[in-house]
Each structure stands twice: as structure tokens, then as C-alpha cells.
């Protein structure tokens, strides 16, 4: 076996998480009863026309930037023609010779060995629907028709299943990190085809390859690579010539099977889609999109620990969820106390849904003692309900911290007079009794008293009693 190596290239399809589909206003997310998330346009009714969703271009370009690609200034959409019942127009709108992104790479590390895997191209295209097979026949569900996809094609730089796995894991991490897809293989929002050929170790030529389609987990991809490599070696050793073909992998039997050979392959009769205009990205567009590209996840983790002085576990929790990390990062740039910000955000279960500006404002109000630490939770609840500005809500809810000593003096006097037992306890040396008195002060000020200030006033008064 050792005298052969595999030459592997991967084609990965990833669904972009845009609000609407690539060519119409239908929602792009999964779910819904069959044929409830489609319209005349994505169902390809006669006379309808596609209109390119600009967000798809933005998302794809951002993915390309994250994967070190060059982004085209001129790009266009082409029609790929073939008949299938899940393809309502009988052509898929895709990109042939002017893809949006080219010449990228991903660096991987397998067992301490660094390797750079080239990315040939990334293009945008529409997804097809799916067939549903029932007892009395088959049906076509068009909900998925027109869901935006990017296809990421790697160079044949991968040699082993372990490298393929590392490449896919890093790809998934980076695309999630840049915030354009959730890349869930189980749910089908990330799919992978494997192109594989073998050659004697030391040979640099490329030989006849097979393509293994429809692999839906990392485990199956790795197993399929090993099984297909073994099959190709067996064939070669047995003196049989390999043919270019499409194969599928059967995990039960752990082997691959022929789906179709090249002579029967479709001629897709690609040509530029006359219903769509070229995609032009200006230098300004490039700059705007470039500004949205985050640091690499590992760079951010290091920054949070070393520069922001967050505990490692806090930093990791933030970086684990790309959306949360992006909100945190944007907010952190507007505050003096990134640690306080992290604590406030992690105390909220849905922190990523709140704009960075709101988090920054809450942090700065707490840091400046304008509101108490108990206030952000109340403010967030009100914000989620009303969407009003935080400053307005602070006033409306009366959450401004009371620092007025005159007022605190009056309240302290009332509290001391009303709680003789606590006063007696304190006098008797039970210092903890001051907490009960503080509680009363907070109750009477609805939680807005400055804690340090109020404690000082109480202590002063108690000392005089």
C-alpha cells in the first residue's frame, strides 16, 4: 500500500444564511410544509425572472476573503442546463468562467505537520428542490429551490483522509466564523464531494480520478476516501484500467459503487444567463467587505486572554459562538472595561441578538456608576420589548443611580429608625447586620442607590448612634 498515495480534491457546497433566497423574496431558511416557501419566481413559472440578491454576493465574497481568495471585480451568472424533476427551470443558475472568488488557501495542521491546501475557486449558485417519494408516487418540494449556495473547490493538494478532515474542519470553522453560514453537515447546509485518484509515491502526474458524491458526515468522508483508495489500488494491481466515473459510498458495506461513467455524463450546455446582468464589485465594495472580515479565531482568543485579561474559559465561551464573538468584539472596541462587558454579556442567554452599541452603553454606564450592576438585566428586558434607546429606558425605569448624599441621609435615617433589631445586632458586633440595612436602603431606592455611598452613610450614622 505504501507505494501509492492518494491525490484528493474536495468540492464543498455551503448554504448561505441570507434572509431571502438568491433570486426572489422567499425565506431561505429550512423548514415549512412542502411547497410553502416558494413563489412563481423560484418555481420557475413561465414569464418569471430572477433578480440577484445582493446579500448573497456580499456573503460569498466575505467567505472568499476569509479563505484568502482574490475577489473578482467582474463576475457573471451562467445557466447549467439539465433535466430533473427537482429543478423547475430545467437549468441551474450558477457560475462557469468568471467565479466570484479564486486562488485562496487554507492552512491545516495534521499531527504537527503544517500544510497549505489551495482553493481553486468559490462560486455562487442556486440550490435545487428535493424529491419526496411516497407510496402512491413521487412529489417535488420546491422549498429549497433558490436557496443560495457557495461551491468551494479545492486544489488536488490533499493526500490523506486525515488531511481532508482537517481541511473540512478548518473550512467549517472559518466560514462559521465569518458569519455567513452555520455549516451543519447533518442538516445539509454543508455537503461534500470527493475527487480522488492514486499515483505511485514520488510521481507528480495526475491520473484518472473518480468522484464520490453525496457524503454527509466527516466520518463517511474519511471512510469513503480510504475505501476508494483501496479499491483503486486493487484495480491497478490487478492490471485493470480505471475509468473516470461518479461513485457513491455505502457505509454499511464500507465500499464505493459506480453511479455513472463519464460517457453518460451530462453536457450542461453552459451559457451566460441573459436574464441577469454582470456582477460588478468596485474597489469601494471590496473595502467595505474587507472591513467586515474578523481576525482569525485563534488571534482573537489570544487577544482576549492577553490584552483584555479575560479568564481563558470566558474567552473560549465568547469565541465558540461566532455571532457572539462578533458582537463582543464590536462592543469591546467602545469600552474601557472589556472584562465587565464580557461578564454582562455572558449573564444574558441571548446576548448575540443585542446590538454591540447597546452592550457598550450598558458597560460604560455601569463602569461610570451611572447605574447599578442589577440594572442591565432590567434594561435589556425593557429594550427587547420596546426597542427604545437605553438612555431613555434608564430614565423611564428610574434606574439612575442615587448618589445624592442628602437623599441617602434621609433614607438611611428612616431605615435605621424602622429596623431597631438590625441596628442592635450591628452594635453588638454582628457586622453582617449591615447587609439587612443595605437591603432596606436598596428597596426604598428601587435598587438605584450607589452601594459604596450608601454603605458609607449607614456606617457613619451607626457609629454615631
Amino acid at each position, binding site marked *: 500500500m505504501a507505494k501509492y498515495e492518494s491525490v484528493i480534491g474536495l468540492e464543498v457546497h455551503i448554504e448561505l444564511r441570507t434572509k431571502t433566497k438568491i433570486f426572489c423574496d422567499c425565506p431561505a431558511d429550512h423548514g415549512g410544509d412542502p411547497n410553502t416557501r416558494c413563489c*412563481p*419566481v423560484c*418555481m*420557475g*413559472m*413561465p*414569464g*418569471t*425572472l*430572477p*433578480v*440577484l440578491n445582493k446579500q448573497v454576493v456580499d456573503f460569498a465574497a466575505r467567505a472568499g476573503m476569509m479563505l484568502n481568495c482574490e475577489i473578482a471585480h467582474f463576475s457573471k451568472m451562467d*445557466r447549467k*442546463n439539465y*433535466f430533473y*424533476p427537482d429543478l*423547475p*427551470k*430545467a*437549468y441551474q443558475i450558477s457560475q462557469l468562467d468568471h467565479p466570484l472568488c479564486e486562488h485562496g488557501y487554507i492552512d491545516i495542521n495534521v499531527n504537527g505537520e503544517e500544510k497549505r491546501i489551495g482553493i481553486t475557486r468559490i462560486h455562487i449558485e442556486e440550490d435545487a428542490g428535493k424529491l419526496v417519494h411516497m407510496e402512491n408516487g413521487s412529489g*417535488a418540494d420546491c422549498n429549497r429551490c433558490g436557496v443560495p449556495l457557495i461551491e468551494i473547490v479545492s486544489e488536488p493538494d490533499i493526500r490523506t483522509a486525515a488531511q481532508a478532515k482537517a481541511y473540512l474542519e478548518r473550512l467549517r470553522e472559518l466560514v462559521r466564523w465569518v458569519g455567513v453560514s452555520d455549516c451543519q453537515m447533518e442538516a445539509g447546509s454543508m455537503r461534500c464531494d470527493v475527487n480522488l485518484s492514486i499515483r505511485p509515491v514520488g510521481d507528480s502526474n495526475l491520473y484518472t480520478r473518480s468522484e464520490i458524491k453525496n457524503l454527509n458526515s466527516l466520518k463517511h468522508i474519511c471512510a469513503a476516501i480510504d475505501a476508494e483508495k483501496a479499491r483503486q489500488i486493487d484495480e491497478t494491481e490487478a492490471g485493470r484500467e480505471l475509468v473516470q466515473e461518479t461513485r457513491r459510498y455505502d457505509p454499511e458495506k464500507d465500499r464505493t459503487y459506480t453511479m455513472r461513467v463519464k460517457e453518460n455524463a451530462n*453536457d450542461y*450546455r*453552459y*451559457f451566460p444567463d*441573459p*436574464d*441577469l*446582468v454582470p456582477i460588478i464589485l468596485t474597489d469601494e465594495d471590496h473595502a467595505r467587505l474587507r472591513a467586515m472580515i474578523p481576525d482569525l479565531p485563534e488571534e482573537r482568543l489570544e487577544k482576549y486572554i492577553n490584552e483584555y485579561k479575560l479568564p481563558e474559559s470566558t474567552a473560549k465561551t465568547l469565541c465558540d459562538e461566532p455571532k457572539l464573538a462578533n458582537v463582543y468584539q464590536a462592543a469591546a472596541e467602545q469600552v474601557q472595561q472589556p472584562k465587565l462587558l464580557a461578564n454582562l454579556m455572558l449573564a444574558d442567554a441571548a446576548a448575540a441578538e443585542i446590538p454591540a452599541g447597546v452592550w457598550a452603553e450598558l458597560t460604560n454606564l455601569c463602569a461610570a456608576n451611572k447605574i447599578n450592576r442589577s440594572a442591565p438585566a432590567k434594561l435589556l428586558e425593557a429594550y427587547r420589548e420596546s426597542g427604545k434607546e437605553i438612555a431613555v429606558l434608564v430614565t423611564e425605569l428610574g434606574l439612575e443611580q442615587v448618589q445624592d448624599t442628602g437623599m441617602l441621609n434621609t433614607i438611611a435615617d428612616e431605615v435605621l429608625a424602622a429596623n431597631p433589631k438590625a441596628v442592635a445586632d450591628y452594635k453588638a458586633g454582628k457586622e453582617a447586620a449591615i447587609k439587612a440595612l443595605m437591603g432596606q436602603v436598596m428597596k426604598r431606592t428601587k435598587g438605584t442607590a450607589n452601594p459604596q455611598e450608601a454603605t458609607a452613610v449607614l456606617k457613619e450614622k451607626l457609629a454615631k448612634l
Partner: protein
Amino acid sequence: MEYAKMNIAELSALLRNREVSAKELAADALQAIAETDGNIGAYLTVAEEEAYRQAAAADEMLANGTAGALTGIPFAMKDNICTKGVRTTCASKMLENWYPVYDACVTERLKAAGAVMLGKTNMDEFAMGSSTENSALQITHNPASAAHVPGGSSGGSAAAVAADECAFAIGSDTGGSIRQPASFCGVVGMKPTYGTVSRYGLVAYASSFDQIGPLTKNVADNAAVLEAISCHDRRDSTSLPQFDTAYSSLIGKDLNGMRIGLPKEYFGEGIHPTVAKLVRDAAQQLEKAGAVLEECTLPAVSYALPAYYVLCCAEASSNLARFDGIRYGYRAQGVEDLDQLYRKTRTEGFGREVRRRILLGNYVLSAGYYDAYYKKAQQARTLLIRAFADLFGKYDMLLTPVAPTPAYKIGEKSSDPMQMALGDICTVPVNLGGLPAISVPCGTAEEDGANLPVGFQLIGPAFSEAKLYQAAYAYESANK
């Protein structure tokens, strides 16, 4: 039928003065159709209920002061333009019973303007043809002579206007499909600049050529209809974002100093002598009206026909692939697998000419042939666009025949697709260039014992519709 012969301006005046209601006009027009169309065959569907509904809406607009130039005016729609709930067949067996779930942009615009749709007109199947003989559903006769074709593909629309079965009609023009039937039937037909009328809801034949436009009884009416249907539409990516729609603005202005070129390639071999004479007479009339006429040359026009057929068939092969019997339209019976379903449905559902063009289109797009055909044709298209641009540096517009001959007899050319294609030689270059062009009646030719209408064509640079109407109107008023 006292109103049927009237034009839009006359009808509109009667409606505004409350001398007639939209409902009465609709009834009058429907009666005209009932009495005349048996001999013409212009309509595939008469939408009586829809017409009365729209007439009621129009009467309301007239009553509350929101009426415009087209409110209450009865019209006919070519049957490749989607009308919600009204059968839209493209004159094909494939869509014989297809009812769109949405309105085309043009349909919406005309509804909003209060125009009253009487029905849907016959055409060559999927707009492929020049005589309306390729309709899978019926034959349309030329109102000037029942033995002759009305032209095509918008033959039903042109015949309906010429036979006074509507005040105006909407057609579509991919290679001459508005202008040539207008010429054959003796009405005014405009193919506007590509991108000025939304294609949303026009069942696509060749997307980069297709353009919707009006057929009318006179020039001023034509400008008024185009003003109503032309707009930017975000649902059509090729719809232009900004342009002037004041198409009537130059009507009545004199032509002093207007430069008109006569490209000699359009007057050469194959042009019927009477057609050439009538068009040259029209040139003299325009000269009298103040225009400066000059012979010029456009050699690149020789590429037009082959380039057109390669590109439009390529686009059509893809555009018509969706008619596969799966979701709507005709589905073949007695099939055993998916492959058979596709083959049998498409073989039975499409007529000969449509199948021919789909085959041609698939051939030129096949692996290994793309560069030799499709790419080459695109290059020829670019050359032609440049040649037109050069001429429009010197001339405001060009004057040519619309078709080499007057209308021919039904059945005369239908067995010879090459002869049929050559008939498009004068109109096709305009579509390759995305240019506006108008067909204006300029007399009749006596053929086979019938007086057959002939039109001339004015071709202008993009957005020159107002000028084309200006010149066409000057000619029309000098020849009343």
C-alpha cells in the same frame, strides 16, 4: 359597433365627456369581436367577464377623476403575456390550459391605467415564426385579405387592431414580431428600446431580444400606450433604471434638419419592387416635411440573420426547457419512466418549428461547438451594435422597409423555413442592437387580386422613441 373604428384619442374624449361609458365601450367591442372574429381568428380567448370587471373599475375611475389616457379603452393582449386567472397559451398545446397565478408587469400597468382587456390574441407558437401559421391552436387571416397571413408572431394582435376588434393591442418583438405584422396588416407597431418595458410576465422566447410594445391605429395612440406600459421594474434585472418616458413630447413638431439615413443594404436583392417604391415614396414625403435624407451603408447587417438565429435558438432551448410535463401544462400519457415522460411530453407538446429551434439551440451550445457558434454570434452582434452606433453619429434615424414583401398567402411559405427566415432580414438587426424601431403604414401593393398593406420602418438609437414618433407622425399627417 359604432365605436369600433375609433382610435384611442377619440374614445378617450367620448369617455371623459360622459357620452359613453367604459361598460358600453366594452360591450361594443365584444360585439365587434363576435361579429368579425369568426372570419379573422385574431383571438384565442375572449375574456368577457374580465372585460366587464375592468370596465366597471374604469367607470369608477372616470367618475372619481382618477382616469388617464387609457382608462376605459378596450385592448387585446398577446397570448404570451401573463394575465392572472385568464388562460395564457403561447398558442401552444403545451400551455393550452395554463392559467397564470400572477400578472405580468405590463398587465398590471394597463390594469392600473384602467384599460379594459377584451382577450388574448393568437400568435406563432412561443413567438417563433413570422406568419402566425405556427400557432398550434388556430389560423389567423389578414383582415385585408382572408387568403393572406397577418404576419407574425404578433399576428393576432395586428389583425385585431386592423379589423377594428379593439382600440389597441399589445405584442412582443424578438426579431420583428410587432413590426412585421403591423406592416402586413396596415397598423402602427413599435418595438421599444430593450429594457424600457419590463419583461416580467412575458413568457420568454429569447431573453436578450424579447421586448413588449404597442400596436395601434395611429402614431399618437402608439406613443400614449407606450407611455403607459414603459417603466423601471425591479423584478426584471434587464429593466433600465432611468429613462425619459415622455414619448409623445415631440409629436407635431416639424422635422426641419432631421437627418435620416437610407442604408442601401435594405433596398437590394429580394426586396419586392412595390415595397421598395412605397418606402422610397415615404422617404420623399419625409424630405418634404423637412428631413434631410441620404443614402448610407451598413455592411455589418449581413451578419444579422445568422447571428440572430444562433443566439435566439440558444436562449430558447434553455428558456423552453422548463416545459417538461412535471409541474404544469401538457403531460404525455402512457410513459414508463422519467426519460420517456420528458421525451414524449416535449415531442407531443411542441410544434415542428419550436422543436426545430430547440434542437438548433442545443446544438450550438453543445460541448465543442460553443466557440464556433454561440461565441462567434456574440462577436457578430457586437460588430453590428458598433456599426449602428457609427451610423447614429451621422443620422438621427434610419429608414428601411419592414419586410421584403407584402403579406404572402396562407400556406405559401410555411413549408420552407429558410424563405420564412429571410423575411425577417429587415427587422432582426434592430433586436440584435436592442434599438427602438417603428413600423408605419405607407400604402398598399396589389398582389393576387388583393390590396395588401405595406409599411416602412424607422430605426433610431436607444431612447429615441420620441423622435421616431415625431417623424412617423409627420409622415402620417401629410398622408391623411
